[in-house]
């Protein structure tokens, strides 16, 4: 069962519409992964390599990133290679937040 102890609270996107710091995104994702898989992960480990996580867990990651960082992952961004490692996911979050901020301000 999920408890307050084993569940990391999702990070909120910055209120000013700016992009989250990639380091902050990484830390949040590592906490989330550890809580969900009961395993510690390195930021550059391929989560979906042989014997790794399932495709349904990949979708869980997509939905978690969208909810936690206020982004929408669509079109060609919605492909497994963007979710293989924590480092790659943090880069995606930062890029999509910057794009959203750019379109709001531009």
């Amino acid at each position, binding site marked *: 069962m999920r408890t307050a102890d084993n569940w990391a609270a999702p990070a909120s996107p910055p209120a000013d519409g700016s992009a989250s710091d990639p380091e902050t995104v990484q830390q949040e994702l590592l906490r989330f992964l550890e809580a969900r898989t009961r395993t510690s992960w390195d930021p550059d480990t391929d989560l979906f390599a042989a014997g790794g996580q399932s495709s349904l867990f990949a979708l869980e990651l997509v939905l978690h990133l969208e909810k936690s960082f206020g982004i929408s992952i669509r079109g060609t961004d*919605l492909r497994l290679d963007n979710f293989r490692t924590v480092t790659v996911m943090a880069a995606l979050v930062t890029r999509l937040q910057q794009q959203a901020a750019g379109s709001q301000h531009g």
Partner: protein
Amino acid sequence: MTSTPQPRDRLVVLGAGVMGTGITTLAIGHGVPVTLVDTDREQLVLAEPGIERGLRLAQLMGTLPPAVAIGALLTSTSLEAVADATAVIEAITENAGLKAKALAKASAAVRPGIPLISNTSSIPIDELADSVARPTDLLGTHFMNPPSLIKTVEVIRGAKTGDAAMAAAGSLLTALGRQAVVVKDAPGFVTSRVLHPMINDAVRVVEEGTATIEAVDALMQGCLGHPTGPLRTADLIGLDNLVDSLRVLFERTGDGGCQPCELLLAKVRAGELGRKSGQGFYTYEEDVR
């Protein structure tokens, strides 16, 4: 090879549960229009976000054909929708009596020559043949879950199934980008006959305290190449569906390994049905069920 869906294609799927929703997702993702039928309107309402999620999952995993427009989806609470069908897939609860009733109604309304396909994990097709108007049009499939991610489909030819129904079902599966493997009729066919008693044993190993849930799955994945581990697979199948299937197998084969073990039965009694209920051997977020 994926053939282009013809404009006249209209697949009717009966039952908006896990498999009916998954087959609908696969079909519209390949551009085939679908009418999804369920007598329970609430189930149809629940199916729509499930289909949306399924399409995203298929896109994420790169299993949708490129540059194919999503097929139109209609929903209906009436079996009259089968009158326009070019193929019917029945995917209701895994219960021989209920399936026979649904197939009898559908076969009375569908045009002769249209394949009537019962999607089942273990019920022999010949047990359903007497309930339909034209047993030559009836055959079985066993799609794995989720259908849009697993390319191979077990196809069951009943003793009375005709060549035309087999050919029509083969064309449909090709249009859906699936690879058919045809087997003879028997309880559990091939995949469930082999897999379900194995999962039952995996649960028994946990019940006896030999290993944790995670350890069983890690060993079966890491040492034997099972894609997700038997207990995660059980959650995906649905523990209630697994118990139903094991009972079908036990009643028809007498194989003691198919008698559902106590931990499995206790989980079903507690409403812990796997991914679809949020809790099985593992816990699931509502968003991804």
